[in-house]
């Protein structure tokens, strides 16, 4: 079929190329796909979209690049992959951006997260941190006020007061679905703020430390008492649905949810939702995460110049304006450009804008923990083995949450498995 397409193109237009783009099926990417005919009209470059769920995308793209298959010209990658793949030479560096692109307008923390040794390897499509969402009406009815910077002790107190399962309202919704990008993204921020860390400076896992135990007991206890039933099957999407249907009193999760929660078309509680910083326990280090979805070129691409045109188009100021005009300003991909947050159109449509900006600016992947660590990344550890480790530990945490085993047993198993993986990978 590729040969046929190439043959046809050869006849119709001498210069027209088709770029194959692999991306995630998140709402912001689906908008990009809908708007892409505009790009084809401007440049004559045709686009072939491969839209997949996050996990499947990661499997497809990783195997594609690792085996030199070269099926994709542009891939969607996250903050976790970019430094690792940049180091491995899997991504083509981003060079010679025109002045009109205004690379300095990208949030510095986001830009750093997409670089390896000072070289940019991907351009951010949207970026997120984590924050606390709460229901203003429920807080008012219970006579509570949510501070701008809550602590976990306060959160537990609030959850107890608001929890009312007979009316279908659960005190606090949190991620429970196992996976390194699901429950472990949230749970790692909890461990960080309780003073824990994944590894010490010798790359020895510290999952059996008191900080992990405290964090895990707090989490299991909180969700068992004040969480919805079946927490272990709730990931980001499930919690978003629960909160927007008015079933959660509080929810600590990605700032990207704000666009959905504040939009009356997609949320029943659009007028009642409030947003404050992610809670803190012992230390503010790593209490909220930083993640960016970005577009990059695999080393196997044959159309670098055309790829760059699309990368610049999809992450430009003009694109954000196009989304604002077409879908409404509240829907604009957040977190990438400082100028978005100075734009009155956006700040008016998105009352959460300043909180998101504050969270993204203050997240520091280079100092994610209280004690020193040999790795970067707030809610992940930027080493190739982390996908395996995070998935395994995520399963153990979920087992503890489901009551299949005790917190101590789950953490002991997680520590053992992680130590094993690190040994297998040759760290010790």
């Amino acid at each position, binding site marked *: 079929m590729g040969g046929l397409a190439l043959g046809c193109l050869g006849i119709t237009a001498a210069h027209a190329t088709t770029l194959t783009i692999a991306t995630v099926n998140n709402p912001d990417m689906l908008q990009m796909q809908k708007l892409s005919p505009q790009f084809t009209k401007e440049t004559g470059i045709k686009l072939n979209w491969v839209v997949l769920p996050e996990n499947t995308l990661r499997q497809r793209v990783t*195997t594609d690049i690792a085996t030199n298959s070269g099926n994709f010209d542009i891939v969607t990658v996250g903050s976790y992959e970019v430094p690792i793949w940049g180091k491995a030479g899997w991504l083509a560096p981003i060079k010679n951006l025109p002045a009109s692109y205004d690379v300095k307008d990208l949030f510095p923390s986001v830009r750093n997260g997409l670089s390896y040794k000072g070289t940019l390897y991907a351009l951010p499509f949207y970026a997120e941190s984590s924050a606390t969402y709460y229901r203003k009406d429920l807080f008012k009815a219970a006579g509570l006020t949510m501070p701008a910077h809550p602590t976990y002790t306060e959160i537990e107190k609030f959850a107890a007061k608001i929890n009312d399962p007979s009316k279908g309202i659960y005190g606090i919704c949190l991620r429970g679905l196992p996976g390194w990008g699901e429950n472990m993204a949230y749970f790692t921020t909890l461990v960080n703020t309780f003073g824990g860390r994944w590894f010490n400076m010798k790359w020895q896992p510290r999952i059996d430390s008191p900080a992990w135990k405290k964090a895990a007991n707090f989490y299991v206890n909180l969700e068992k008492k004040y969480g919805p039933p*079946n927490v272990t099957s709730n990931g980001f999407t499930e919690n978003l649905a629960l909160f927007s249907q008015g079933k959660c009193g509080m929810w600590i999760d990605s700032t990207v949810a704000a666009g959905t929660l504040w939009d009356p078309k997609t949320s029943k509680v659009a007028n009642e939702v409030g947003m404050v910083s992610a809670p803190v326990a012992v230390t503010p280090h790593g209490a909220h995460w930083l993640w960016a979805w970005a577009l990059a070129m695999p080393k196997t691409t044959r159309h670098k110049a055309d790829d760059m045109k699309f990368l610049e188009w999809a992450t430009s100021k003009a694109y954000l304006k196009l989304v604002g005009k077409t879908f409404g300003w509240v829907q604009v991909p957040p977190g990438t450009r400082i100028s978005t947050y100075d734009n009155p159109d956006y700040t008016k449509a998105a009352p959460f804008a300043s909180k998101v900006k504050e969270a993204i600016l203050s997240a520091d992947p280079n100092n994610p923990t209280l004690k020193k660590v040999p790795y970067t990344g707030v809610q992940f550890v930027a080493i190739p083995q982390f996908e*395996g480790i995070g998935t395994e530990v995520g399963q153990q945490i979920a087992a503890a949450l489901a*009551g299949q085993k005790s917190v101590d047993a789950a953490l002991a198993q997680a520590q053992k498995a992680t130590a094993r993986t690190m040994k297998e*990978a040759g760290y010790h």
Partner: protein
Amino acid sequence: MIQPTSGTITPGRSGATQRRQVRTLPLLLPAVILLLLWSILPLLQTILYSFQHYNLMEPPSAYNGGLNYTYLFTDSSTWTAIWNSVVLVAGTLVASIVFGTIIALLLNNDFPGRNIARLMAIAPFFVMSPVAALIWKNLLLDPVSGLAGWLMTLVGFKPIAWFSVYPMVSIVIIYSWRWIPFATLILLTALQSLDTDQLEAARMDGAKGLARLRYIVLPHLGRPISIVVMLESIFMLSAFAVIYTTTNGGPGHATTTLTYMIFIRALNDFSIGSASAAGVFAIVLANILAFFLIRAVSRTLQA
């Protein structure tokens, strides 16, 4: 001196055979070569990988002796996975044979609407695994919006989060739902070939219903049951879709079977080396099982 004599005899003999029968090797060769390429090469490749430290995220790969196997056999989660596979296969087998026999016996009777009932009983087998899994996960077993949860609240119980409290039981229920129809189909066909004269004779000799079932019907079903056991074990050993769609092998390792463990190692950890080692081990286990199953089946066929 001896050599020439033997030399003269041999060509004569082979010449004689050549005249009588066609050389089959050249005709078979293309098929055999294709088969070898198709099955043996990937196997050899897998064995080769199983002796390498080969992580897609960390090229290049390098020979690391039997380390992958050492890690595989000293890892307690390997044995958990094997045990889970056994529970899954055995649980589904028992359920599908017991319920398959009962349903087949019921459907073998004459009653109005029998054809529709038969069709309905067999239909689940044609539902694709991921679809079946999604229906069970979201419409039936979900504690908030599922039928089971609603029924339990009707009678005053708290709804159960099936996939986190009884994960393996839930998986076995879903697979049984898919495979009971298969057993029913095979057993029903077998029942229809049962000689009615024999049953009639037994009845006239005064044998009660239960005795007729015990001494005539069930022995007659022995052969089809052994075929169900063989086919279902082969399919269930590679069961994957329902686990992937519902529990992702969790919580903990509660529903991680050997197949799912290999998938996680290959496509989540990208550790091709250790996934291959586990794969080779799975092949050995499956072959041991197949050896006994085929022997058992051929014995019942000869009897």
